C-alpha cells in the first residue's frame, strides 16, 4: 500500500453521551488509533458535535499542525457537514476530513461490547488509511433559481403556495384534478372547532387564483424532472379540458345545454352519491372556475355524432374539442411535494360489508351527506331516502391492522367524533362509536371528545368483527348487525343499526411510488414519502431542494398539514434567499491524456454529462451535469476517470485499512 508521509492525522472519538460509550470502549479505540501510522493525536470526548468539541479540533490543528481530521461518532448523513465546517474553521480544507460511523453502524446495533469495539477499531483504521489520500476540494457554488414548484393543491399545497408567493417569490402550483382544494374541499366541518371547511378553505383557494405570484396549473401532472437543487427543469403535462381556460367564465350555460338532459355519470366529488354530466365542474366553488369535458362519457368523443349543444351555448367560444395534452416546461430552484394521501379502500375490509350492503358508507361519503352543498343538500338519508334512526361508526377501518395497514391514521378518531356530532345533529339518531383506543392528542381535541360523551353518543370499546344482515330476532330484522366484543364489559354484543359509517384510514396515494421515482426521493416502509430526519429535518428529503408537506409524508390532520406546509415553505425560502447552493464536489473527471475514446463510459451516465469529442477522440464530463454516482469510473478500462472523494486509491486504502492491522 502506498503511504503519504506528509499526512498528520488528528483522531477524535465521540462518546455521544452514553450512546456510543456504553457499547464501544472509546478509550481503548482512542489508544489504539494513537498508534496507527500518520496519527499525531488521538482523543476521546463526550460530545464531539458540541461547540467545545469543534473548538478542540481547531486548537489541536494549530498546536499539533494537523492536516487531516477523522471523527468517529454518528452517521455522516447526520453530522458530516458539522465536522467539515469545523475542519474548515480550523484552517484546513474541509475535505481533509473523514467520518466514522460507530453509532448507527455499531453501538446501536450490537450487544457485545468487545465485538463492537473491535468493529469500531476496524472502521477507524479504515478511515485513517483513507483520509491520508484525501485531496483538497472546493464546493461549487451555483445560483438558486428563486421560482418554486409546488405539486398538489390540497390544503398543504395551497398554504405553502400562499406563504412563498407572499414572500415575493414566483410559485407554480400543479394540481392533477380540475380544481384545487383537495380532500378538505369535500369536508363539511372541521374538528374540533366545527368551523365550516368551505368557509375557511375557499377564500384561500381564490387567493391562490388571484395571487400575481402564483401560476396555477390545474388538471396537470408533472411528467419529468431533471436538474439539481437550485436548478430543476420540470415538464408539466396539461391534460385537455376541451375548454380554453382563459375564455371560460364559469357561467355553466354549457352544462345546462348538454345533450344529456339528466346527469347520469357518477360524480367523483360527491363520492359517487350523485350524478354529473360529461361537461361539468366538480363543485360550485371549484378553482379555477372552469368547466371541463370528461371524454370518456361525452357523446362527441364516443361517437363523434353529438350536435355539440354545449359548445353552441357558449357565447365566448371557449370550446375546443381538438385540445391535446400540452407539455409546459418550467425552470425552478426548489420543489415542494404536497401530493396528499388516499383514503383506505373499504372494500379491502370485506367483513364490514362495504359494497355488499348499501347502507354501509365510508366516512368520506358521509362528509358529503352532511354537507349542505352535498348530494342530498345536507339531509342525511339512506339510499332508499329514509332517515337512519341508529348509526354505527366503526373506527380504525384499515388502520392498526396487520392485515391491511399497520399504522394509526391519526385523524379518524377525531373525524369520527365530528361525524358523530354532525350525524346526531342532522338525524337525532342513536349513534354508536366502535373504537379500539380513543386517540385525541391535540389542542382542544380531548375536550371535544368530552363534549361528545355528554351529547349522548354511545362509545363501545372493541374491534368490530363483522357487519352483516344476519338477524336473529325481530328487533334486528332489516337492520345491519354490528358484531363486536365490548372489551369494557367483556361480552360479545350485536348492535343493530340502520347505517354503518366506516372511518377509513389514510394511506399513501396510489401514485406515490411514481412520484417518488420522478422526484428521486425515498418512501418509508409503508409508502409515505421519507423525510430526511424524523425529528430534525421532517420536511426535507434526501434530495436537496425537494421538500415534503402534508399527508404525503404520513397521516396528519389539517392543522398539522398547514404547519408542515409553513415549515417546508420556510425551508425553500431560506434556500432561495441564501442565493446559491453549494454542491458536493463528488463529481467525476476524465484525465484526457489517458482517455482512449472507447466510449464505454458514455452510456453509463443517466444525465448525459459525458459527451464524446469527435475531434479529439476523447470523452468529456460536464461537471455541472455530473451528479457524482461514480458509475462511469468503474466502467473505464483505462482508469482515466476519477471521482472526487471516491478515488480508487481512497476506497482501496479504506478496504485495506478495514481488514489489515
Amino acid at each position, binding site marked *: 500500500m502506498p503511504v503519504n508521509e506528509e499526512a498528520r492525522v488528528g483522531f477524535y472519538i465521540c462518546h455521544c453521551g452514553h450512546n456510543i460509550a456504553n457499547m464501544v470502549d472509546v478509550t481503548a479505540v482512542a489508544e489504539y488509533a494513537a498508534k496507527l501510522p500518520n496519527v499525531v493525536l488521538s482523543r476521546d470526548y463526550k460530545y464531539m458535535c458540541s461547540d467545545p468539541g469543534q473548538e478542540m479540533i481547531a486548537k489541536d490543528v494549530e498546536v499539533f499542525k494537523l492536516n487531516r481530521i477523522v471523527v468517529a461518532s454518528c452517521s455522516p448523513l447526520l453530522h458530516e457537514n458539522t465536522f467539515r465546517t469545523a475542519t474548515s474553521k480550523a484552517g484546513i480544507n474541509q475535505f481533509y476530513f473523514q467520518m466514522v460511523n460507530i453509532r448507527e453502524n455499531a453501538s446501536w446495533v450490537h450487544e457485545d461490547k468487545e465485538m463492537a469495539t473491535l468493529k469500531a477499531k476496524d472502521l477507524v483504521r479504515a478511515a485513517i488509511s483513507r483520509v491520508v489520500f484525501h485531496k483538497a476540494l472546493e464546493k461549487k457554488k451555483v445560483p438558486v433559481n428563486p421560482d418554486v414548484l409546488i405539486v398538489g393543491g390540497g390544503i398543504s399545497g395551497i398554504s405553502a403556495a400562499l406563504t412563498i408567493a407572499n414572500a415575493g417569490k414566483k410559485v407554480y402550483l400543479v394540481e392533477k384534478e380540475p380544481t384545487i382544494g383537495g380532500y378538505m374541499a369535500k369536508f363539511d366541518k372541521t374538528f374540533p372547532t366545527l368551523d365550516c371547511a368551505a368557509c375557511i378553505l375557499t377564500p384561500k383557494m381564490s387567493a391562490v387564483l388571484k395571487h400575481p405570484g402564483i401560476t396555477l396549473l390545474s388538471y396537470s401532472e408533472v411528467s419529468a424532472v431533471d436538474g439539481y437543487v437550485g436548478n430543476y427543469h420540470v415538464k408539466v403535462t396539461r391534460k385537455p379540458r376541451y375548454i380554453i381556460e382563459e375564455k371560460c367564465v364559469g357561467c355553466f350555460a354549457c352544462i345546462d345545454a348538454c345533450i344529456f338532459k339528466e346527469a347520469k355519470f357518477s360524480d367523483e366529488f360527491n363520492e359517487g352519491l350523485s350524478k354529473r354530466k360529461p361537461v361539468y365542474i366538480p363543485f360550485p366553488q371549484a378553482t379555477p372556475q372552469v368547466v371541463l369535458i370528461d371524454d370518456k362519457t361525452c357523446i362527441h368523443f364516443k361517437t363523434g355524432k353529438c350536435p355539440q349543444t354545449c359548445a353552441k351555448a357558449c357565447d365566448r367560444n371557449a370550446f375546443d374539442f381538438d385540445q391535446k395534452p400540452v407539455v409546459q416546461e418550467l425552470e425552478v430552484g426548489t420543489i415542494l411535494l404536497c401530493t396528499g394521501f388516499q383514503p383506505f379502500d373499504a372494500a379491502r375490509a370485506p367483513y364490514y360489508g362495504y359494497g355488499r350492503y348499501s347502507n354501509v358508507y365510508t366516512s368520506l361519503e358521509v362528509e358529503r351527506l352532511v354537507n349542505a352543498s352535498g348530494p342530498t343538500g345536507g339531509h342525511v338519508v339512506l339510499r332508499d331516502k329514509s332517515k337512519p334512526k341508529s348509526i354505527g361508526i366503526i373506527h380504525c377501518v384499515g388502520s392498526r391492522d396487520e392485515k391491511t395497514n399497520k399504522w394509526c391514521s391519526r385523524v379518524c378518531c377525531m373525524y369520527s367524533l365530528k361525524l358523530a356530532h354532525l350525524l346526531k345533529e342532522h338525524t337525532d339518531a342513536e349513534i354508536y362509536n366502535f373504537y379500539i383506543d380513543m386517540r385525541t392528542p391535540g389542542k382542544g381535541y380531548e375536550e371535544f371528545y368530552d363534549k361528545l360523551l355528554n351529547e349522548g353518543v354511545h362509545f363501545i370499546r372493541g374491534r368490530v368483527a363483522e357487519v352483516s344482515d344476519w338477524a336473529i330476532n325481530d328487533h334486528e330484522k332489516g337492520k345491519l348487525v354490528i358484531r363486536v366484543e365490548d372489551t369494557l364489559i367483556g361480552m360479545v354484543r350485536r348492535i343493530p343499526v340502520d347505517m354503518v359509517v366506516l372511518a377509513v384510514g389514510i394511506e399513501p396515494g396510489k401514485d406515490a411510488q411514481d412520484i417518488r421515482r420522478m422526484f428521486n426521493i425515498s418512501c418509508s416502509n409503508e409508502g409515505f414519502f421519507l423525510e430526511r430526519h424524523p425529528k430534525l429535518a421532517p420536511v426535507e428529503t434526501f434530495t436537496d431542494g425537494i421538500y415534503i408537506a402534508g399527508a404525503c409524508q404520513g397521516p396528519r390532520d389539517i392543522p398539522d398539514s398547514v404547519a408542515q406546509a409553513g415549515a417546508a415553505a420556510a425551508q425553500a425560502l431560506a434556500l432561495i434567499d441564501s442565493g446559491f447552493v453549494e454542491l458536493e464536489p463528488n463529481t467525476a473527471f476524465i484525465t484526457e*491524456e*489517458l*482517455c*482512449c*475514446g*472507447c*466510449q*464505454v*463510459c*458514455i*452510456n*453509463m451516465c443517466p444525465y448525459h454529462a459525458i459527451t*464524446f469529442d469527435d475531434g479529439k*477522440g476523447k470523452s468529456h464530463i460536464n461537471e455541472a451535469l455530473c451528479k457524482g454516482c461514480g458509475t462511469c469510473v*468503474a*466502467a*473505464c*478500462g*483505462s*482508469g482515466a476517470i476519477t471521482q472526487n472523494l471516491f478515488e*480508487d486509491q481512497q476506497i*482501496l486504502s479504506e478496504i485495506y485499512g478495514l481488514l489489515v492491522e
Partner: protein
Amino acid sequence: MAQDKPKLKLAVYWGAACGGCCVSVLDVHEKLLDILAHADLVFWPIALDIKYKDVEEMPDGSIDITLFNGAVRNSENEHMAHVLRQKSKILIAYGSCAYLGGIPGLANFSTREELLRRVYEESESLDNPQKIHPQPSTEVSEGHLHIPSFYNDVLTLGQVVDVDYYIPGCPPQSERLVEVFMDIVSGKDLPPKGSVIGASIRVQCDECKRKKSDKKGITRFYRPWEVTDDGETCLNEQGILCMGPATRAGCGVRCVEGNAPCRGCYGPLDGIGDAGARILSAIASMLDGKEPEEISRATDSIVDPAGTFYRFSLPGSKLRRKVS
C-alpha cells in the same frame, strides 16, 4: 558511432517461456547489427553456449542489461533470476510472462498435483502404467540425478527479484525493444524504476482504427467463428469479446489489425491494481439487460471468463491464483 565508449554487456534469458520472446529479439532483423555495434551478448541460452556456471562466475553488476523473459515456474528459473539480478545493472522483465505471469501463469488455476496427475496419469497419449511422476532427485546407479523442482505457484519475475523495468507483450514488439535499447545506449534519462517501458500510456482503443460508438448494449457475446466480423466496427460492439478497452497499447493493435480480438497481452495501464477485474468491469459495463435472466444470458455467453480476463495476468493479479 563512438568506438571509445565501451560496449554494453547484454544478456537474454528465458524462464518458463515458449521461446517467442527470444525470437522477438531476433526479429529486430538487421537492427541486431546496430545493437551489436553497441553491445556484446554475454549470455543467451537460445543462441550462445554460455553455461550457468560461467554466469555465476561473472562479477556482480557486470552485465549492463538483462532481458529476462518467461515466468518463474521452477527452482531453476528462480535460481537464474537471483543470479541475473546480482550480475545485472538493469534487469528487465521482458514479455508478458516475466511481467505478469503470462500464458504459463494460467497454470495457477490448478495445483501442482492436478497438473502432474493430468500430464503423467491422465494424458491421452500416455504410456505410464506405474504412474511415475518426475522427482527432483532420483537415485540411479551412477549416483544422484537432480532436475529442477516444479513449483505449485507460477510467479512473475517481480515476485522473485527486484525488477528495474517491464516490457510487456506476448511477445513484445521488436521495434519497441530497439527503441528502448537505443534510449539506453544514447544515455537518455531513464524512467523511474519499476516503470513499464516500450509501450503506450493508453489502451488499445486509442490506436485501434475500428469505428466505435457509445451504443454498446451487448446482449450476448459470440465466439469469433460464430459471427462474421464486418471488418470496420469495434469488435466488442459486434459481440466479439475484445480486451482492447483495458489493455495497454504499444503492439500496434496487431491482433485487431489482423481481425482478431485483442487478448490482453500488454496488460493494464499504470495504476490499475488488477487487470482482470478492470477488464471485467469494462466489459460488463457494455452489457444490456435489466432482468437477472437477461444479464445471466449475456454473461454466460462468455466462455471461461476468469481465464479470458486474466489470460496473461493471473500470477500478477491480486489473487495470484485459484485460492481453493
